[in-house]
C-alpha cells in the first residue's frame, strides 16, 4: 500500500515536472529559436521569474504552469506521507 502511495506520488511529481519543462522548452524555443531550445536545457526557469517573463511577453498569465506545479506538490505530499509511515 505504501509502495503504491509512493508510486502515485512520484509519478504525479515527475509527470508535473516533465509537463512544466515542456512548457518552459516550448516558450524558450518560440522566443529564441534553436538557441532557446539549447538554453532551456542549460538554464532553470526559476520559481517565479519565468512565469512573470511569460506573462509580460505573451500577455497571458501562465495558469497552466501553476496548475501543473500545484498537482506536482500534491504528488510530493502523497509520496511524503507514504514514506513517513515506514
Amino acid at each position, binding site marked *: *500500500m505504501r*509502495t*503504491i502511495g509512493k*508510486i*502515485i506520488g512520484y*509519478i*504525479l511529481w515527475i*509527470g*508535473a515536472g516533465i509537463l512544466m519543462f515542456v*512548457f518552459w522548452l*516550448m*516558450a524558450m524555443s*518560440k522566443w529564441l529559436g534553436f538557441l532557446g531550445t539549447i538554453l532551456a536545457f542549460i538554464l532553470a526557469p526559476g520559481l517565479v521569474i519565468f512565469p512573470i517573463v*511569460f506573462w509580460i511577453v*505573451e*500577455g*497571458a*498569465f*501562465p*495558469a*497552466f*504552469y501553476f*496548475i*501543473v506545479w*500545484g*498537482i506536482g506538490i*500534491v*504528488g510530493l505530499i502523497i509520496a511524503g506521507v507514504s514514506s513517513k509511515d515506514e
Partner: protein
Amino acid sequence: MEETITPISPIKKDNFFIARIKKYQVITFTFGFLLLNQEIVFWANYLTGKDVFLGKPSLNILFAVIGIPLIYFLQWLIVVWVASKFTRERLKEKFLRHPIATIILFILFITDLPYRLAGYWGGNLASIFEVIVYYAFISFLWWLLVCWISEKIWKKQRFQWNWYKKIVDKTFIILPPLYKFVLGLIVALLLFLLLFLLITKVFHYTGSDIMKLFNY
C-alpha cells in the same frame, strides 16, 4: 531483590473486515479504486444523460448507491477468500507442479484477451485495467480447477523443465512490483486528470496561455 511485574495487556484482535483489509492491502486498494472509477463513470453518464442502465431514475440511483458497492464488496470477499487459501510458496509449488496446464491456460488467456478488450479500446484506462484483472482472476480459477483435476488423475509430477522453473521464479519476483507500478500509474493518471479538471473549473481556466504558446 525486587521483582517488577509488567502488566500484560490483552491482545487486541481486529474484526474480520479490518484484519483482511490490513492483510490484503493491495487487493483492497484495487477494489476501492475500481469501485470509485465505476461510480464516477456511472454518475458522469447518468448526469449527462448518455446512458441509463435501468428504466426509472430512482432505480438507477439505488443501483449506484447500493448495487455497485455491493457487487464490488462481494467480489472483494471472493478474491480475499481465494487469496487466503494460498501462500506465495504454495502457489509457486502449484505452478511448478503443473507446467502443461499453466502454459496452455496462459496461451488461452493471452490469445483471448484482445477479444475481451475489443469494446474498451479508446475508452477509460481504468476500465481496460479492470477487464484485464477480472479476466486474469477468472482464468486463475479455471487454472486451479484444471490443476485439481490433474492432481486427481496423475499422482506424480510428470514434467520438470529447468527453463520453466526459471520463468516461474522470475515471474514471482517481477509480477508483484509490476502490478503495483501499473496500478499506481493508472491511479496517478486519473488523479492528475481529476485534479486538473477540478482546478480548471474552480479558477475558470480557459487555456489562453497554451493557445498563445502554440499560436492558436
